[in-house]
């Protein structure tokens, strides 16, 4: 993957340079074409077009000089310390192992970086939805008629929004998780040890497939389709007769009913898996386990980002014009209908672009795992620095990985945003 990205980078840089030079040549050609066809042409050094081209040539020349100067310094220094400027080290053994990860020290540097990158993705895949959920709840809470809820939401936002995210991370890690939870030998096991909390791992119960699990999974997929069909049917009924559709309730009900019947008929194809900890407090088995640094990083980022999302949610709802609410009221829409059909669709449009930039911030902030030793992209690459792997190439790769993530996220966001904004224009 990394080699592929590097190649893409090289190609796009070449393309950009070619584009710029081609544009310059084309503009110059066009300039002289126009000048040739006109009798009242200005003196060349006072021609608006010529000045533009000259200015660009100067900038280009200055940049080229600067880069060649920096590059010669760079080559001189790398030669001095004997640094190879190639990417062969990616295939060498990395001597890296990551907690809860199949990576072995014998695996290549490239494989290690890939695993680190996957850990970054794990943080953002769990963290962003959680932050969105918490942020929306808090943002909406600030409109609550309940004084206590409103004030607590405000206090939460105003406190956590105004301290650095790094402080939230190290506080949660150093003060709450490491010192607030018992060592794994004395792990805290609430609810009849269905949950295990220690300052090493969190463990939660999970589901485990038994006999007939494959069949059950298939039935669940079918049930999903049936549920969708029922929801569509309810919508048709609503369109035809005007009777309230309750399609979500109907859909969920159908799904639950099929799932329950199939569960009984297949003789319990799924059981719960209870997490367990051996006597010495070392080996976990069963359930879902969560590494401490992972939990600390994800929760801290969620706590911090949610405050920003809450502000966006609050602002975007308030940004919907007051007349819209009045018009909805005058049409006798209920509170739910008012939000569902009038306020939220409009608020979402205002909120979406800043939300995307918060998601990007979340992604970039996940690199602060470096401070608490959760081995994601940045922290893993820092480990590699420590093993005297070549820094320039690694930094290039580091930047490239985050650039890719940012590009993918913002491209995705832009597609949705365009769909949102296009309506009503």
């Amino acid at each position: 993957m990394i080699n592929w990205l590097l190649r893409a980078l090289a190609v796009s840089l070449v393309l950009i340079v070619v584009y710029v030079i081609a544009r310059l040549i084309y503009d110059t050609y066009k300039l002289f074409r126009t000048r040739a066809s006109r009798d009242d042409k200005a003196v060349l050094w006072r021609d608006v077009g010529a000045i533009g081209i000259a200015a660009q040539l100067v900038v280009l020349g200055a940049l080229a000089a600067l880069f060649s100067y920096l590059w010669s310094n760079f080559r001189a220094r790398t030669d001095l310390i004997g640094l190879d400027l190639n990417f062969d080290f990616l295939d060498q053994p990395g001597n890296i192992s990551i907690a809860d990860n199949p990576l072995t020290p014998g695996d290549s540097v490239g494989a290690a970086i890939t695993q680190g990158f996957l850990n970054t993705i794990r943080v953002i895949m769990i963290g962003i939805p959680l932050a969105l959920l918490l942020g929306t709840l808090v943002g909406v809470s600030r409109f609550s008629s309940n004084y206590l809820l409103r004030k607590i939401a405000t206090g939460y936002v105003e406190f956590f929004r105004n301290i650095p995210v790094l402080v939230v991370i190290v506080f949660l890690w150093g003060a709450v998780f490491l010192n607030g939870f018992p060592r794994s030998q004395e792990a805290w096991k609430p609810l009849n040890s269905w949950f295990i909390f220690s300052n090493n791992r969190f463990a939660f119960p999970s589901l485990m497939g038994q006999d007939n699990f494959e069949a059950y999974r298939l039935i669940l997929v079918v049930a999903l389709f049936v549920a969708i069909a029922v929801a569509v049917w309810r919508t048709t009924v609503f369109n035809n007769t005007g009777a309230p559709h309750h399609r979500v309730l109907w859909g969920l009900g159908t799904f639950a009913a099929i799932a329950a019947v199939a569960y009984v008929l297949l003789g319990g194809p799924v059981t719960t898996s209870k997490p367990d900890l051996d006597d010495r407090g070392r080996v976990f088995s069963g359930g879902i386990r969560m590494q401490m640094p992972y939990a600390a990083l994800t929760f801290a980022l969620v706590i911090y980002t949610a405050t920003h999302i809450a502000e966006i949610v609050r602002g975007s709802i308030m940004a919907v014009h007051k007349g819209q609410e009045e018009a909805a009221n005058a049409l006798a829409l209920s509170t739910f209908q008012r939000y569902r059909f009038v306020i939220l669709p409009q608020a979402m449009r205002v909120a979406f672009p800043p939300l995307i930039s918060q998601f990007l911030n979340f992604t970039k902030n996940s690199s602060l795992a470096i401070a608490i030793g959760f081995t994601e992209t940045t922290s893993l690459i820092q480990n590699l620095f420590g093993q005297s792997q070549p820094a320039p190439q690694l930094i290039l790769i580091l930047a490239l990985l985050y650039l890719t993530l940012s590009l993918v996220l913002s491209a995705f966001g832009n597609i949705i945003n365009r769909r949102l904004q296009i309506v009503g224009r």
Partner: protein
Amino acid sequence: MSDNMTINADATQVGGNGNVMIDVTNMDKFFGDFQALTNINMKVGEQEVVVVIGPSGSGKSTLIRCINRLERHDRGSIIVDGVELSDDIKAIQNIRRETGMVFQSFNLFPHLTVLENITLAPRNVRNIPKAEAEATAMELLERVKIPDQAHKFPGQMSGGQQQRVAIARSLAMKPKVILFDEPTSALDPEMIKEVLDTMKDLANEGMTMICVTHEMGFAREVADRVVFMADGEIVEVGTPEHFFTNPQEDRTRLFLSQIL
């Protein structure tokens, strides 16, 4: 039209066909410490057209916004079609269902098409089938003379067209009374006529209407009664002829001399 109506500050005589549609008694309204409306007494009959005029800040918009509970009145009672307006959400929704409103700034929903704007409330509040709601909407759009705009978004239309959509939207709920809150104040001069024409048609079809407006021509031509308000009070009430030719109160005369 009842020509025998005298000119006085009593707005409680019922016009129209004699059945009371709206009954406001001893109503007061405050904004903080500021008293916006003082002791309002007014009755509106079925099929009657009442035009409310007055200088800005006189409380006329507040008065009609109290009738469908966009503002909460502080004292007195408001009865719309036999239902008393209280804090009871059921009563409020019942009254709003029977009361259409047209705003100065249109307040169409910008993210919905014209057709969706019109059918939203009938489908979700009145539970009317989609096809039927859309057919009604198309009829209404014919009536306000913009049937070809059904699938446009409000932002793509002129102000006059938007306001006519807003009228169609409130008509779609088949209301018993429509409140107009300065419907032409935000419009360019050339668009005012198309909206006023639509309103005239409505009046001729026997719709009960309360219009807050600055269009004196409209008041003269269409109104059954003109209510003049100033400083949160009803100052003078009368038929248009009497009102415009022979106003009794100084404040009315001053106002009319300023605008005519």
